């Protein structure tokens, strides 16, 4: 692969990666948000794959395939399964109308237009913060590094402003995708044993959150996190 083509493809993948995170802020249907998250997983795997091909490292290509399977396949599947369970239960119990309530982010704390503007501001912030990181070793990969930080910040934003439990889980996963992308762009990924441990932890965290979402619904009758306000001082 020529240097120019590599750079273009890498930038394309990074663009798609960032765009997926931004569009998450725009959509309200949880199903669409999960689909976008899966798409972002594909873009992340593509970034790792391109780096692997460029540096001729087979290990990295294998990691890319694994990342793709986890973040574009397994994790979205788990969230979608939890979502389906809620919607089906509601439809059965309340005559078909309640399901859509659980499947939508009805009223995020910040409205869509303001969210998109915030995302733009956060991206600028990421570019400003990442200046020293890029200057340390200006290659095509590290030049794209601010994209990873931007997705981390957007993930945090989703985490704190969304009210549905599953939307918060997606926020956490966006944050994690951003960190993984940063690791790939900065240093072609962390060592394999750490990458394995991290992926395992993230998978477990999502499983735990999925079970907790079910329990939140059992205890509170909804997955609206705003109702979780019994513990305070």
């Amino acid at each position, binding site marked *: 692969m020529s240097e120019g083509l590599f750079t273009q493809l890498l930038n394309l993948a990074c663009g798609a990666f960032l765009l997926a995170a931004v569009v998450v802020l725009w959509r309200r249907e949880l199903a669409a948000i999960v689909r976008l998250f899966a798409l972002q997983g594909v873009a992340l795997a593509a970034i790792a794959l391109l780096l692997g091909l460029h540096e001729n490292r087979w290990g990295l290509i294998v990691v890319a395939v694994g990342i793709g399977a986890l973040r574009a396949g397994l994790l979205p599947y788990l969230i979608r399964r939890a979502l389906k369970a809620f919607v089906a239960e509601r439809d059965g119990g309340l005559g078909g109308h309640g399901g859509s309530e659980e499947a939508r982010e009805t009223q995020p704390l910040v409205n869509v237009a303001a969210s998109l503007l915030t995302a733009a501001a956060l991206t600028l912030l990421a570019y400003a913060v990442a200046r020293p990181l890029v200057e340390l070793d200006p290659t095509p990969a590290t030049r794209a590094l601010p994209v990873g930080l931007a997705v981390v910040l957007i993930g945090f934003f989703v985490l704190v402003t969304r009210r549905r439990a599953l939307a918060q889980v997606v926020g956490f996963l966006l944050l994690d995708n951003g960190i993984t992308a*940063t690791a790939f762009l900065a240093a072609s990924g962390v060592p394999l044993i750490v990458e394995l441990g991290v992926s395992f932890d993230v998978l477990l965290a999502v499983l735990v959150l999925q079970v*907790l979402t079910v329990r939140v619904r059992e205890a509170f009758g909804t997955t609206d996190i705003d109702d979780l306000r019994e513990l305070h001082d």
Partner: protein
Amino acid sequence: MTAATALFLTAPAAVPLAVAAGYALTGSVRHELPRGLPTVRRAQDRRPQRAEKAAVVTAQGATSVSPRGEVADASPPGKSAVASSARARHPSDWAALASPTVILTCAALLAADRVDSGSVSAYSGLLRADALTAWMLLVVGAVAFIACASAPAHLAAERAAGSATAWTVWRYHMLVQTFLGAMCLAVVTGNLGVLWVAIEATTVVTAFLVGHRRTRTSVEAAWKYVVLCSAGIALAFLGTVLLYYAARQAGISEAWALDWPTLVARADRLDPAVTRLGISLVILGYGAKAGLVPLHAWLPDAHSQAPAPVSALMSGVLLAVAFAAILRYRVIADAALGPDFTRVLLAGIALLTLTLAAGLLLAQRDYKRMLAYSSMEHMSLIALAAAIGSPLALSAALLHIAGHGLAKATAFCASGRILQLRGTSKIGRVRGLLAQSPWLGALFGLAVVALLGFPPFSLFASELGIARAGFAAGAGLSWVTAAALLLVLIAFAALATRTARMLLGPGEPSGESPSALWPLVLGLMACAALGIATGPLGDLLTQAAAVLERP
């Protein structure tokens, strides 16, 4: 490296995991486990009294504003079937003591082994022990011993009250053992990536322990705990990644770029700007896990909702293990950036956390939350000591970690007994504890006295050490130390008056049987012994502090 050393390094993490696997096997053979995700209904079929309580809770939820968890606890225990299971002996509860014993033994052997050899490592640096590791392992082992030894009494009372079944007890043991294994791994690893994986694993493992009662409050606490800690600690991973990037650019090979001793040795070659960003994220991230501002919000909720022995472990050692990670990173940061950066950062965080903890202690009406805020107070004192960074301050910080672990484990285990006895965690509704059950009341009172920093308990020595080091460290830090001492006094007053309110007053003597309280006596005695004379541990403490000194 000898085979014996490799064994001592592997055992602290491997044995708890093996015990967990043992519980998993025997549990799945002996008890019929609920299958599939929606386990609640199935579980309720088997224990009708539980379903009744759930109904009580939901009914109250519809009418009253705050159906707290203790509503379920306060309701009368189930009758006939429960009484027999309470009297039955449960030897499997005691098997959990195997891991703390192994951890303590390995820690002692490692301490003896490396006193003259600096550090030992195995599996190309993935497992590594120096004096600090041995010290932390001793603390983890000692606190785990208290927690695991109090667990049988706690679980027996839960069984008697009908709020624990074979399945929940089985799960409790398995999760606690895995939790211990993950903490030990975090302590004995020399690789910063593995350290992160182990600390995040503790979050995942303890989530169900925090939410084990399945009431509204405990589910809420578990949710906040997982989301805040995972997100916070994700920042620490981002920081680790940035540090890895800086290390690779400094010419360190892939296999060693996350190795702590390698990074310390070559810290002067790391790019300062990248390191600064990375270290800030790491301190913020592990600070979330250590209960430091700004990501501390999970702590009072999780500590107040978890079962008492788990609260003891979380407060006594989980916070300390996360803090040990911060201490390790601080060495790298100081070598790369000079001491001022972490000094300002840690001193600022310490003062903010202390202010918050003292303020909320003043308004506290729940004794488990009171203990949780007291943990934040003590963590910020350790942060202050880390900011000062002189040898005296560092030894005081490590001694404080040990003393706080022992005293807080005792206090939390005692508070669990009080909760079972009185069915409420409100301070106002607990009165005359000393009159009702003198042993329990005295032990709880003494644990709080230890936490307040009275001699002979070791927190007196360590707080004195931190104060002395602070006033000797120059004008800026003297002011910070003075402010911190003032805030500690406020917290002291709040803690003392509230505990006095619980202990004093008239009460019916209940004819308690103090035999189950021996682990608490042991914990307080250890804390006092450490305060009177460090004995053979003195050398270890000095060397552990030397590991953390600025190169």
